[in-house]
C-alpha cells in the first residue's frame, strides 16, 4: 500500500511537470551532429562498456557507448533460460540462500573494482536488494563467480560500494530489522528498541577477488539508503546516507519526513578494523550462504556460514558519526579529491556539500549537537562546506567529471544540473525524459573520471518510444559533457528498472577476454575429453550421460533403455576450441531450461522423463551448415521394463559402422 501511494505521488508529480516542460521536445533538445557522435559504423567497436543494473530482472546488462547497443545480459541473481544459469546443475548452487533456492532478485547498483581509486577492469560487484546478497562478476568471462548472502540485513540498498583499493565492498541495510540472534517475533511498535540498521564490510582478496564477510557494524535502526567510500585524503572512511531518523514504522512517506534533517553517517572503517583486531566484536550466530563458481571444475558450490562478528557503534563511540543532512538524503557521493561529500535530500530544494576536512576538525573539537541512539551528531554548520541554492527539485545523485564539475540528477524537475564544486554555482541544466533516477559519468565516482559521457537512467518514458501496451520500455539518455554545455545525444531502451551503473573505457577490458576454455584444463568431474570417452553409466535410477558436442553432432546421439522414474543427467562437454562457438542442448518436455555450453566447458542438465516414448534432443545454437542435423533421440520405456541401456553414434542399419555400446552399471 505504501509503495503504491508513493508511486502514485511521484507519478503525479512527474506528470504535472511533464505538462509544463513538454515544449523541450527532441527537435530542440538534440543538436545537429548528435547522430554523428553516436554512430559506430558496422564492424567498429564502441568506445566504452556501460554496465547497467538490471533492476527487477535481477541481471546486469552491458551496453556499448556511445551507440547504446546492448552487448550482453549477464545473469547474476535471476535464473536465465537463455544459457541455463540457475537451471544447470553446475549453476544452481549460485542462487542458494539461507532461505533455500531463490530464482530472482532486485538488482540495484553496480560497482567496478578499483586500484588506487582508479578503475582496474577486473571485477564488477552487484547487489541484490530483496534477499540481501552481493555478487562478483569476473570481467574476463562476464560470468558471476561469487555470491555472498548478508545476515542481519533486509533491503540491501546502500550496496555494493567499494573502497579505493577494493579492500571492502560495503552493504548497508535499508530496512532496520532485529538482528538474527534476536527474536524477530516482536510487535512492530517495539521498533525503536528492537530494530537495528546493520552495515556489512565484505573483504575482497587482492589477487583472486574472493569475498568474505569481514565484520558488520550495528548502527541505530534507521533506513540506510546509499553510500560511497572516501578516497585520497578521506580514504579509510565510508559515508552512508540514511532516512527515517524518526524511526517511524507506518505511512513512511509522511511519518519519515517529519525531521528537517536526517543524516549522512561517516564510518571510520580503519578504526573499526582496529577494534575488530582487538576482539571488540560480538559473535552473532546466524546463517548465510556463500556461493562460489570454480572455473576449473566449472561448478559452483554453496556453503552455509554460521557466524559473523558485529561491532556496536553505540559502544565503540569513535567509529560512527552522524552529519545532519537535509532532507531525507538519498544519494551520498564523494568527489574525485575525496574532500567533498555531496548529500542529496530527496525533499530538499538545495544540495548540501560537506567538507571532509571540516568534519575531522569538528570531531577533534567535539562540535557535537547531541547524540542519536548513542552515536555523536556533529553540528550541521561544522561539517558543511556550503549549499547549492535552488538547483532544481528532488536532487538524487551526483557524479563528477574530474574537472571540478558535479552533475546532479533531479527526479521531480526531470533534469541534470551541472554545477561547480568550489563555487557551488549552477553552470548548466538539461532536461531528461523523464524522472531521472541515477546518473553516471564514465569513471565518475573514481579519483580519475574519464568524463566525456554522462548517462541518465530514467524512470518514465511516456511518448519517447513506440508504445508496447500498458508497460513502456525503460530508458537511458546519453549526454556529451566534454564541452561547457551538456548535449543530449541519444535515447536508448534498457531493462527495467535501471539504477546505478558503471562504465569504463573499452580498452581496459576488451583485450583480456577469455575466448574459450582450454579443454586440457577442464577439471569437471563429468568432463568427456574426446568422443572416445563418451559413455552412459547407470547408478540405480540415476543415469549419467557423458556426452560431447562438436560441429555438427552429439556423441552419443541415441540412447535406449532409459526408464520412467530415472533421473538422467546429461553432462555435455563442448569439444570446440574456438571463440564464439557455444553449443546448445535441449530435450523435449524437460521441465527446466536449455544448456548453452561454451567451448571447452562441461554443463549438466537434469532430466526426469515422465512418460514412455521417443524424446528428441538437439543443439539450439546455430553452429554450422549442418547445425540442423545436430540431434539425437532418447528412448524411454515404462518403469520396470527390461530394455537394455545402450547408446550409440552412427549406428543406423544403413550406415552401421560403429557398434551399439552397452552402458555401464555401477
Amino acid at each position, binding site marked *: 500500500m505504501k509503495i503504491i501511494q508513493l508511486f502514485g505521488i511521484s507519478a503525479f508529480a512527474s506528470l504535472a511537470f511533464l505538462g509544463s516542460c513538454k515544449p523541450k521536445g527532441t527537435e530542440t533538445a538534440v543538436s545537429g551532429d548528435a547522430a554523428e557522435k553516436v554512430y559506430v559504423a558496422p564492424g567498429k567497436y564502441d568506445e566504452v562498456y556501460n554496465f547497467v543494473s538490471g533492476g527487477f530482472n535481477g541481471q546486469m546488462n552491458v551496453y556499448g557507448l556511445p551507440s547504446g547497443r546492448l552487448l550482453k545480459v549477464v545473469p547474476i541473481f535471476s535464473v536465465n533460460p537463455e544459457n541455463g544459469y540457475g537451471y544447470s546443475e553446475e549453476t544452481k548452487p549460485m542462487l542458494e540462500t539461507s532461505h533455500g533456492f531463490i530464482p530472482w532478485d532486485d538488482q540495484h547498483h553496480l560497482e567496478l573494482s578499483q586500484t588506487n581509486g582508479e578503475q582496474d577492469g577486473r571485477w564488477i560487484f552487484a547487489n541484490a536488494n530483496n534477499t540481501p546478497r552481493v555478487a562478483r562478476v569476473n570481467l574476463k568471462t562476464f560470468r558471476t563467480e561469487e555470491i555472498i548472502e548478508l545476515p542481519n540485513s533486509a533491503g540491501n540498498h546502500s550496496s555494493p560500494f567499494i573502497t579505493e583499493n577494493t579492500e571492502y565492498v560495503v552493504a548497508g541495510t535499508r530496512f532496520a530489522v532485529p538482528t538474527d540472534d534476536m527474536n524477530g517475533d516482536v510487535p512492530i511498535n517495539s521498533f525503536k528498541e528492537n530494530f537495528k540498521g546493520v552495515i556489512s564490510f565484505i573483504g575482497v582478496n587482492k589477487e583472486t577477488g574472493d569475498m568474505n564477510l569481514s565484520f558488520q557494524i550495528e548502527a541505530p535502526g534507521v533506513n540506510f539508503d546509499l553510500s560511497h567510500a572516501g578516497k585520497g585524503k578521506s580514504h579509510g572512511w565510508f559515508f552512508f546516507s540514511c532516512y527515517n531518523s524518526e524511526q517511524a514504522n507506518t505511512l513512511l512517506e509522511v511519518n519519515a519526513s517529519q525531521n528537517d534533517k536526517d543524516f549522512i553517517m561517516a564510518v571510520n572503517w580503519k578504526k573499526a578494523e582496529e577494534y575488530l583486531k582487538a576482539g571488540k566484536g560480538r559473535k552473532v550466530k546466524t546463517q548465510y550462504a556463500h556461493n562460489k563458481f570454480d572455473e576449473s571444475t566449472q561448478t559452483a558450490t554453496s556453503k552455509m556460514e554460521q557466524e559473523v562478528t558485529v561491532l556496536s557503534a553505540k559502544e565503540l563511540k569513535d567509529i560512527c558519526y552522524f552529519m545532519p543532512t537535509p532532507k531525507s538524503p538519498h544519494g551520498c557521493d564523494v568527489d574525485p579529491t575525496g574532500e567533498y561529500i555531496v548529500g542529496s535530500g530527496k525533499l530538499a530544494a538545495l544540495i548540501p556539500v560537506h567538507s571532509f576536512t571540516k568534519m575531522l576538525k569538528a570531531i577533534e573539537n567535539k562540535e557535537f549537537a547531541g547524540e542519536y541512539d548513542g552515536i555523536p551528531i556533529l553540528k550541521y554548520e561544522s561539517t558543511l562546506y556550503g549549499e547549492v541554492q535552488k538547483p532544481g527539485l528532488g536532487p538524487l545523485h551526483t557524479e563528477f567529471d574530474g574537472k571540478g564539475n558535479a552533475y546532479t540528477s533531479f527526479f521531480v524537475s526531470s533534469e541534470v544540473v551541472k554545477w561547480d564544486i568550489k563555487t557551488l554555482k549552477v553552470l548548466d541544466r538539461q532536461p531528461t525524459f523523464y524522472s531521472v533516477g541515477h546518473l553516471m559519468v564514465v569513471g565518475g565516482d573514481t579519483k580519475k573520471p574519464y568524463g566525456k559521457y554522462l548517462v541518465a537512467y530514467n524512470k518514465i518514458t511516456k511518448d519517447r518510444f513506440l508504445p508496447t501496451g500498458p508497460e513502456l520500455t525503460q530508458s537511458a539518455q546519453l549526454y556529451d559533457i566534454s564541452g561547457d554545455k551538456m548535449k543530449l545525444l541519444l535515447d536508448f531502451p534498457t531493462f527495467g528498472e535501471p539504477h546505478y551503473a558503471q562504465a569504463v573505457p573499452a580498452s581496459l577490458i576488451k583485450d583480456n577476454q577469455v575466448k*574459450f576454455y582450454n579443454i586440457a584444463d577442464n577439471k569437471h568431474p563429468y568432463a568427456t575429453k*574426446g568422443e*572416445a570417452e563418451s559413455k552412459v553409466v547407470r547408478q540405480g535410477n540415476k543415469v549419467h550421460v557423458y556426452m560431447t558436442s562438436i560441429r555438427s553432432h552429439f*556423441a552419443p546421439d541415441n540412447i535406449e533403455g532409459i526408464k520412467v522414474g530415472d533421473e538422467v543427467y546429461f553432462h555435455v562437454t563442448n*569439444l570446440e*576450441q574456438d571463440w564464439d562457438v557455444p553449443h546448445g542442448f535441449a530435450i523435449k518436455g524437460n521441465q527446466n531450461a536449455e544448456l548453452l555450453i561454451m567451448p571447452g566447458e562441461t554443463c549438466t542438465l537434469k532430466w526426469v522423463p515422465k512418460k514412455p516414448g521417443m524424446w528428441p534432443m538437439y543443439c539450439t545454437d546455430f553452429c*554450422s*551448415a549442418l547445425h540442423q542435423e545436430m540431434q539425437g533421440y532418447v528412448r524411454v520405456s515404462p518403469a520396470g521394463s527390461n530394455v537394455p541401456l545402450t547408446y550409440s553414434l552412427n549406428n543406423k542399419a544403413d550406415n552401421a559402422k560403429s557398434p551399439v555400446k552397452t552402458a555401464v552399471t555401477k
Partner: protein
Amino acid sequence: MKNLKFLVLPMMAFAMVSCGNDKPADASASTSSTETSAATTETSASSESGQYDPKRGLGKYDESNVDVSKFDAAMAAEGKKVAEVKCASCHKPTEEKLVGPGWKGVTTRQTPHWILNFISNPDPMINVDPELQKQLEICLVRMPNQGLNDTEARQVLEYMREIDGAK
C-alpha cells in the same frame, strides 16, 4: 620473414570478412559464395603479394622452422591422444569420411608444412587453398580451429605420419 607478413596480413583480413559471412549462411548459399570469394582472393593474392603457395599453405610453418627428417614415435603417441580429444569427433584414422575426410594418406598428398599450417589455423587457408575449397564442397563444414599449440600441431602431424606407415 618480412615478405611472409605482407602475404599473410591482407589475406587474414579477407578471411575474417568471409568468415563472418559464413555463419548465418545455410549450406547451399555458402557453397556458391565461397566459390566466388575464392576466385576473388586468388586474383588479389597474385596481383598484390605474389602467388599463394599450395604446397606450403598459409601460416608460420615452413622448412626453416620444422624439421621432419626423422619420424618420432613418442611424439606420434602424444599426437594420438591430442587427436582423440580434439579431432576424432570428425576424422577417422582410416580413409573413411566422417564429418571431415579420413586421415589415411594425407601425408602423401600434402607437405608437412601445409598440414601444420592448416591444422593450427584453418580459416585463412580454407578461403584460398584450391584443395580445401574442393573439400568444403563435399563436407560443408569448415574445419573448426581447435586451438592446437605448436607442440600439439607437431604431435598430430607425427600421428598422421604414423597412420601412413612411418616408422
